[in-house]
């Protein structure tokens, strides 16, 4: 059993594992002795970090600032009165829900069937070094064992080269099986339900292939995740 009071050093150096970090933070908010020790030691951390400071490239500043501009400000808008377009958005959204909700009763969208399945889990797709463009802002796969299906979602995905397309693969013991081709829309968004049966333990990968797709991959895996 670990004595929490000893963990100030490893905490400041960011070398606790996830579980210990969470536990130590909880301890720290209660323990004045540890708070005092953090205050005492943190100038050491600040010195260590400033001695190793490196100015980031200037274009990173633009990327960071534009990434927060794209953020949805709704989460923090509780004290802002609705003005301009904002006034109309809510009723408009309600009408949309009412209209499309009515359709949903008769015909469940196959993509929504996976995304809304009670057993659905979502994991981020990892981007490999083979992907040379700007990484997408969102890349994830939602898998429902009950539906035996998975849905790929991207946002901010760059177009494939020329007339190429992206092709998804489901990979099990027998190797990669084609699971559909796609190209993102003008905003880099795409959402597709994979062809074929998705099962736990299978790997989803995405490659770039010639127009129409191929029966076996030729490109390097650009994105991947395990179901």
């Amino acid at each position, binding site marked *: 059993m670990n004595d929490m009071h000893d963990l100030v050093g490893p905490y400041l150096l960011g070398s606790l594992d996830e579980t210990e970090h969470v536990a130590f933070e909880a301890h720290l908010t209660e323990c004045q002795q540890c708070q005092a020790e953090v205050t005492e030691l943190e100038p050491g951390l600040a010195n260590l970090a400033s001695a190793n400071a490196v100015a980031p490239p200037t274009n990173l500043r633009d990327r960071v600032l534009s990434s927060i501009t794209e953020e949805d*400000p709704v989460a923090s808008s509780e004290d802002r009165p609705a003005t301009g377009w904002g006034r109309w958005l809510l009723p408009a959204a309600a009408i949309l829900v009412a209209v499309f909700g009515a359709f949903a009763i008769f015909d469940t969208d196959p993509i929504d069937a996976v995304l809304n399945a009670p057993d659905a889990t979502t994991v981020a797709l990892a981007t490999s070094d083979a992907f040379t463009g700007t990484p997408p802002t969102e890349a994830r796969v939602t898998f429902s064992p009950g539906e035996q299906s998975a849905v790929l979602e991207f946002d901010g995905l760059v177009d494939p080269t020329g007339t190429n397309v992206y092709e998804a693969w489901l990979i099990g013991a027998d190797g990669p099986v084609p699971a559909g081709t796609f190209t993102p829309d003008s905003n880099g968004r795409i959402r597709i339900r994979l062809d074929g049966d998705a099962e736990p333990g299978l790997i989803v990968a995405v490659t770039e292939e010639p127009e129409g797709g191929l029966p076996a991959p030729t490109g390097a895996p650009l994105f991947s995740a395990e179901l």
Partner: protein
Amino acid sequence: MTALALQQRRLVNPTWRVRFTLLAKEATLTGSIHPQPTNTSDLVTLLNAVARQDRDAFSALYDAISPVIFGTILKTIRSREHAEEVTQEVFLEIWRKADDWDPRLGSPTTWMLVMARRRAVDRIRREEALQQREDRIAPSWTDRPTSEVEEAITAQEDRSEVQESLAVLSDAQREVIELAFFGDHTYVEVAEMLGLPLGTVKTRMRDGLMRLRRGFGVVT
């Protein structure tokens, strides 16, 4: 926005004052090798404003803190490209979670540095998992990233700089801090690697940080 309107906005905006102060400080620092640590109370003001989703405060915070955040991530990850991506992730997290900062967890700098370290380590773990998966699914697909050689060279170049910044430490303290802060190892892994009891590693980290408070004793 007209110049007048901008002026008026800045006039009533406390964030702009902090930003202006920082810009002014920066202007006086040309020629210094390492950025001067920004005053903690300035950062508290900025972080509180960021928690209210003040974009001007956020860009001022970025200007003040990004070199230490990027440097820390770069030392952990080695790959410049990945370090840039993780830096972007960390700032987005700061934007979203500024409200969670609690002074009991440490100063704003500490909070952001610890977050940066954790995200950098997460990234290394993800890359390792990805590499293993790629090796498993189709070894023939996977070309060794050409950047690996480049990264090895960078690592070598970094070594002397790192050692300089740690010169104030004893060999025993330097060893644990190097493995923890400039790598992706938890203190438990460091203890295993060095065959030391956990308590010893924890103490060396603590004592090392204590010594680093005094600066580096490096003549510049």
